[in-house]
């Protein structure tokens, strides 16, 4: 027996094995569901922590380690590899899984007594294991197995509350898109493996073989476009995003947090792996394509998010926006790399990776917050909420942190990554291509618009949910959520803050990833003014210090607080001023629909809107209506543009083909007879 030494790889493998082994734990403890959830999610948290540690370790070592596992098909062993890129994503996945696992201990208890949770526990762990294996995989076979494990497990998780038609429909849509994407990925790997080692040999299936191969430009383009389509379907780029707003809201909130926070990032990982590690020679127009798709995703995503009144759908659409921003970063990396500007490529890649990490944290945090609200109110519709800040102060604070982060306001983390993305945009005039010179300012302007819209969107999300007074018709008993949920959210919020105020520390660590993929390095330039100031290229161009902004904010807040509270008599609490109108009710507040109305007027052409106002006249006189009924329906235009035609065409073809099947033996025999005659005649 060989000595098992502790390496990052063995630590990560331990995490995966621990997660898979939990299926056994669940089956042993199935009698006592309360104990089962606690044990199960504690172990998941431990495994996630181990994976995070393995990731941190790998990134700090900065070298790649690989191993071969004699499992799977004979002659096709599983290859494992941990390099800085996979290490980074291991940290990203592990960190949020750690928070979400702790959160789940309390959250899943909410289901106890209402439905069996064993399925949730099993698939939760398989889902995590699948995601970890995706980043560990170093051959196409193991990668696809892990990828599909992840997809299948998340399908069952989306289906968790399967008695509702809407949930089954969403899960079906999700699995269809996931499979179409997986087919594209499979084909992409097929193209690369075939070119790496020829088509009569299996040895090309390892990533190592693909790395060493030189692909002809046109086939590399085919492989890249297939991979972009496949990973894009998982990441939710427009127009492949339609499953996100359907699947995320119906899944349990801890699952939504993971799906939105980290599962989408595995697609980002896959794209980076294929483009920068396996193909390597990137023409600039791939980058331009990725940037354009990214900008469209960002803009469309946030506009649709703005229109939503379902809090989880809003967050799902916002994920589309953030994936768009990450894609912009990746696209710029490709462009800069294609033109040989390594340092700028490194800057854009770090912006993309940083934003991936940030999005994982704050979107995870927001979904956990939405889950806490859902847990307390049993309501997803924001129109039925309001004033929750008084009932759930902790959740409100954490949710606010998430909202500030995602709106890219300093000193939180969202600002850093979006600022870095803007820096990359502003440095693009150095590019030699006139086409890119034209595209980049436009992109920067649209990204700025997106950022502003995101801020508006999350003002709405926070304001309508937590501020004001209760808007709903009936008033449920709302209470603060339990400790484990608060701890999970609190740690996520804290990491949002840390990533915001200490960006230089993290960028120093991440630099090795960028160096591996682009050849450029940022550390020297980023640290020109010491660790406090983040100066991506040169101090005279731009610099930012999260810590200074944070301390400044705290100082201003403290001064204001002291001024206001030094004389307690200065603050009065009174009834809301009603402008002389005496009958104010809770229904007269700003709500989600009214808040987004101006933007609906401006960008109305983007949505498929159906607005209706109906008067219910009073019996005495119709000039004084008894009440007004306003209804608004917003549909995704892409549904009618792309998905409906595809669906109806496939149904049409199926019906035509179905006619062949008559159920009569004679008819089937005629088919064979005609086939035989035909073959005898023409294929002699």
């Amino acid at each position, binding site marked *: 027996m060989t000595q098992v030494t502790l390496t990052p790889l063995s630590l990560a493998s331990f995490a995966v094995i621990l997660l898979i082994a939990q299926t056994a734990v669940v089956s042993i403890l199935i009698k006592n569901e309360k104990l089962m959830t606690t044990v199960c999610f504690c172990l998941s948290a431990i495994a996630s922590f181990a994976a995070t540690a393995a990731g941190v370790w790998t990134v700090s070592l900065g070298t790649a380690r690989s191993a071969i596992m004699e499992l799977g098909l004979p002659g096709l062993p599983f290859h494992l590899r941990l390099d800085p890129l996979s290490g980074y994503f291991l940290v990203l996945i592990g960190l949020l899984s750690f928070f979400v696992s702790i959160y789940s201990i309390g959250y899943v208890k909410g289901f106890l007594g209402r439905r069996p949770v064993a399925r949730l526990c099993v698939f939760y762990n398989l889902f995590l294991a699948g995601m970890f294996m995706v980043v560990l995989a170093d051959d196409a076979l193991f990668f696809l197995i892990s990828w599909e494990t992840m997809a299948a497990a998340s399908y069952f998780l989306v289906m968790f509350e399967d008695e509702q038609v809407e949930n089954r429909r969403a899960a079906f849509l999700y699995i269809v898109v996931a499979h179409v994407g997986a087919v594209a990925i499979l084909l992409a790997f097929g193209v690369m493996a075939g070119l790496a080692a020829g088509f009569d040999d299996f040895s090309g299936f390892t990533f190592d073989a693909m790395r060493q191969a030189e692909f002809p430009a046109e086939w590399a383009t085919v492989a890249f476009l297939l991979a972009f389509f496949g990973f894009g379907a998982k990441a939710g780029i427009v127009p492949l995003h339609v499953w996100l707003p359907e699947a995320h809201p119906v899944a349990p909130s801890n699952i939504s947090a993971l799906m939105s926070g980290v599962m989408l990032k595995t697609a980002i990982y896959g794209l980076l792996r294929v483009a920068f590690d396996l193909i390597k020679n990137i023409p600039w127009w791939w980058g331009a394509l990725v940037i354009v798709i990214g900008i469209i995703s960002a803009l469309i995503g946030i506009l649709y998010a703005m229109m939503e009144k379902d809090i989880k759908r809003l967050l799902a659409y916002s994920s589309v926006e953030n994936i768009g921003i990450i894609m912009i970063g990746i696209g710029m990396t490709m462009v800069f790399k294609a033109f040989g500007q390594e340092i700028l490529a490194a800057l854009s890649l770090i912006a993309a990776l940083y934003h991936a990490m940030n999005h994982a944290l704050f979107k995870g945090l927001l979904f956990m917050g939405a889950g806490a609200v859902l847990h307390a109110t049993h309501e997803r519709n924001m129109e039925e909420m309001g004033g929750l800040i008084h009932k759930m102060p902790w959740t409100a604070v954490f949710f606010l942190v998430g909202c500030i982060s995602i709106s890219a306001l300093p000193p939180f983390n969202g600002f850093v990554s979006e600022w870095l993305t803007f820096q990359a945009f502003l440095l693009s005039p150095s590019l030699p291509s006139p086409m890119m010179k034209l595209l980049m300012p436009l992109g920067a302007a649209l990204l700025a618009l997106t950022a502003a819209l995101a801020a508006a969107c999350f003002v709405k999300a926070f304001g309508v949910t937590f501020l004001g007074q209760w808007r709903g018709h009936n008033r449920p008993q709302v209470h603060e959520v339990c400790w484990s949920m608060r701890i999970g959210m609190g740690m996520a919020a804290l990491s949002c803050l840390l990533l915001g105020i200490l960006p230089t520390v993290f960028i120093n660590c991440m630099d090795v990833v960028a160096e591996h993929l682009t050849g450029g390095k940022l550390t020297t330039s980023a640290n020109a003014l010491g660790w406090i100031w983040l100066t991506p290229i040169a101090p005279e161009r731009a610099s930012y210090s999260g810590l200074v902004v944070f301390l400044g904010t705290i100082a201003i807040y403290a001064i204001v607080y002291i001024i206001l509270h030094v004389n307690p008599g200065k603050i009065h609490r009174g009834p809301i001023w009603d402008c002389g109108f005496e009958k104010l009710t809770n229904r007269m507040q700003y709500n989600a629909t009214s808040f987004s109305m101006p933007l609906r007027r401006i960008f109305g052409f983007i949505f498929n809107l159906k607005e209706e106002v109906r008067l219910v006249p009073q019996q005495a006189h119709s000039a004084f209506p008894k009440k007004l009924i306003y209804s608004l329906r917003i549909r995704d235009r892409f549904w009618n543009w792309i998905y409906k035609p595809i669906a109806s065409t496939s149904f049409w073809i199926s019906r035509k083909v179905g006619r062949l099947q008559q159920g009569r*033996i004679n008819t089937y025999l005629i088919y064979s007879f005609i086939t035989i005659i035909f073959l005898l005649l023409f294929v002699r």
Partner: protein
Amino acid sequence: METITQINSFLAALVLLTAFGMLSQKRISSLIHLFTWQGLFLSINTAIVGYVAGRHHLYISSILTLSLKVILLPYILHVLIARLKHRKDVETVVNIPTTMLIGIVLVIFSYHLTAPVRELSTFITRSTLAIALATVMIGLLMMITRRHAVTQIIGFLAMENGLFFAATSTTYGMPLVVELGVALDVLIAAFIFGMFFFQIHTTFDSLDVDQMARLKEES
């Protein structure tokens, strides 16, 4: 040698004749009789070919054919229709004259198709290949045009006869192992068909295969 070829061609003609006979036969017991005759001609033909070509394993094939297709299978089929109290008429999908015309077209087609083989082959039995192929296709045609399950199995067995005939006439028979295997397959197929018929009969109270269209899901 010339006489042997003559006898071979004559037997081939008889096989084809029985095939057409089966195609035109309306009564099911006569159909089984015709099938028996076809098996007999096939068996004799195999024995003659074996004698001429000096392939002694063909005698075994011949005896196998005789016992299986002349004695055992007809017996099973007779028992089957007696047990099922089956009406004696055979229902057809297409009327008989049309079927016969299609059969003739198939024979011509087979001759056209095997012309290149006849040019190249040196076997004495080469001219019978076309007839063998025609027998196969007529068997299939019978399965298509008959509505009744028992006639369909006879069509299937007639097809197998044609294949066997083709094997003896082109290559002086397949290796014995293969022939034994095929014979066993046919026997087992007959048993399975028999069991199916009982099941179909008890389920639908009829042996009309059209009834099975009801098994298909509603569209």
